[in-house]
């Protein structure tokens, strides 16, 4: 009984930290690097802004980071499979995509 409860805690802890891999996307020179990313469901994606001005990570109707300031980051856990094309609403020439398997 106690072992089962302990296992349950491990399971919960696993979910809380995001069981999958963490991927990093750097925003630098008004580009997402890497511009296209393939992840698995449950993976975490972290966007870090290295430019001297804010950016957004926006897939219309899917997700929107809002303004990400200088040296700030924004995290998304990939929950639903699909292809997501996103852009920076402040600099629409800055585009990227995420494929969630």
């Amino acid at each position, binding site marked *: 009984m106690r072992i089962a409860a302990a296992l349950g805690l491990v399971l919960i802890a696993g979910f809380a930290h995001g069981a999958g891999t963490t991927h990093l996307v750097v925003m630098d020179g008004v580009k997402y690097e890497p511009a296209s990313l393939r992840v698995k469901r449950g993976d975490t994606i972290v966007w870090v802004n290295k*430019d*001297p*001005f*804010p950016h957004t990570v926006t897939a219309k109707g899917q997700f929107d980071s809002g303004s990400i300031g200088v040296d700030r980051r924004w995290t998304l856990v990939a929950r639903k499979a699909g292809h997501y094309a996103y852009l920076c609403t*402040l600099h*629409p*020439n800055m585009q990227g995509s995420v494929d969630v398997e």
Partner: protein
Amino acid sequence: MKHRIAVVSGFLLLAAGVACAQAPNDAQIAHIVVTANQVDIDAGKLAESKASSSDVKAFGKQMVTDHSGVNQQAVALATKLKVTPEDNPTSQSLKTGGAENVKKLSGLSGAAFDKAYVDHEVAYHEAVLAAIDKTLIPNAKNEELKALIVKVRPAFVGHLEHAKMIQAKIKG
């Protein structure tokens, strides 16, 4: 109509200034970069307070933020390289054009202000991009200075695209 002629002649002057002037040195290029940003910051501040459309207001605010960010980097780099930005004819025509634009915009309000500001932003970013490509990047000697200009160039492209989107939207 009169205003349009004034704006266009301002840009022709800028283009002519860039074309006729001798190739600028790094100190002059640094000055042009800082001035070009400052001119757009000044116009952006005006739009932040005077624009009636929320899109135009937000764009003005973004111009203040973005161009201030670029200028902080430019000043930090100039300091690091011990380059004292040097005034030059291109900077002067940028400054004059910026002051004329602010003067003109100050006399407008409502939709007329929004349209004039956004139209100018489109033309201004086109002119600055032309200067970046034809004058600043080809003439920058210091690799770090050149790299900074190359790195921020896509931001100007982004601003131009963004401004064109707003231009189309407020036209209705």
